[in-house]
């Protein structure tokens, strides 16, 4: 029995230990926003936050995530209430087929928490662990910059209130 804290819910997963976190999130919990493409930690599609840090969940054993806060794309916004980063990706069209997008957004979330006011070059470096085979990179960089702006505004508003 493994206790996973996923998107603010505590879930008991009955699973063999010899499985990756990505596998369990997708196949047991139905969180298919966790995309698996390369299974080697190179493409970044399976990026989730574990304890706030971005991790390639295809390289993590499910038990290694036990007891830590896991956040997937499903946990940051909903259809009716998009996260500012999701909204920014739509506004800047930071995708084409969108297979890689959840991974990019999760990387962006961790990165913007650390660097709320990045340059385009810093965004490129921070997104270097995510691959977009459609090649939407220029739009992705703009999306992350716009997301940063949105997040700065909303945190400024919160501070003013």
């Amino acid at each position: 029995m493994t206790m996973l804290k996923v998107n603010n819910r505590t879930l008991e997963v009955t699973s063999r230990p010899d499985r990756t976190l990505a596998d369990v999130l997708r196949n047991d919990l139905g969180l298919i926003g966790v995309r698996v493409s390369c299974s080697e930690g190179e493409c970044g599609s399976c990026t989730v936050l574990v304890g706030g840090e971005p991790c390639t969940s295809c390289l993590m054993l499910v038990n290694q995530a036990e007891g830590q806060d896991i956040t997937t794309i499903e946990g940051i916004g909903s259809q009716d209430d998009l996260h500012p980063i999701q909204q920014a990706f739509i506004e800047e069209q930071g995708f084409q087929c969108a297979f890689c997008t959840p991974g990019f957004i999760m990387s962006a979330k961790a990165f913007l928490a650390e660097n709320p006011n990045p340059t385009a070059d810093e965004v490129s470096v921070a997104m270097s662990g995510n691959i977009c085979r459609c090649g939407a990179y220029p739009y992705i960089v703009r999306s992350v910059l716009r997301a940063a702006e949105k997040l700065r505004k909303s945190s400024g508003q919160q501070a003013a209130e």
Partner: protein
Amino acid sequence: MNEAVVDESGTDGVMRARFDYARPATAQEAIKLKSQLGEKARYWAGGTDMTLLWQRSEIQFDHCIDIRQLDELDYISVEPDSIRIGAMASLSLLERSAEAHHLLATLSDITKLMCTPQTRTLATVGGNLCNASPASDLSPAFVAMNAQVVILGEDGERSVGMFEFFEGVNKTALRGTELLKEVTIPLPSAGQIAASYRRIDRTVVDIALVNAASALTVSDSGEIKKASIALGAVAPVIVRSEAAAQPLIGRTLDELDDAMLAAAGEAASKDAKPISDVRASAGYRRDMVKVMVRRSLADCVEQLKG
């Protein structure tokens, strides 16, 4: 709010070796467990290499002993006479420790060349060293810095030089149930030390085609007291080139002109025993050793001259 999810099969349909899992609370407990379980047990750190080997069925084991979250091995500390890096310090912790010491800044720059941001949070310094890849980015830097490793065993600790730690491709000085505890980088009691790492690659995620690290220790008057040059990806283990380093000792920083640095590169290149493979030919690698050594030494000189 608990919800039970029952899974019996639920995998992606690929058959892989099955194993059970344990997460001991202390390093000593991990070692004890390994001695009970024997050969069929593997220590598991960040898992960024192990997961691949397991998924490709390249390793056989029955028990996973997870040491990744051992807090006692997860630290980076700067002390008057040394820098100590715990084996379970993540590459991302090392990346963020640049402010603490200029040698850590050099190591931080190296981590930025390694894998991707979201694998650096998983991968550990100890895991990288224990994997003993000849193309490792950290290994030559630690060898050039004259680092030692501390090894934990059933009967206590022992120290081994970083250079001696590597015994072959994927082979280290670890025996039986032993566990890597920390890397210790000695700091000079007088004068200054600088280190630099250079590599040839093509893009992020790539491994080095050739790499080299240099470290110079100078007295306050600018005389070179120690010099060390280490080469990676040109032999089954990291190569230490005495022939390249020795002529630099006793010189002053101002004497280290382009010709001297180039001569060091030439000498190092003779110590390299590269192979030709899909990534590069032996000849290219040997040529690039000259360039990497020259540039890394020039970096050190620049750092020391300030």
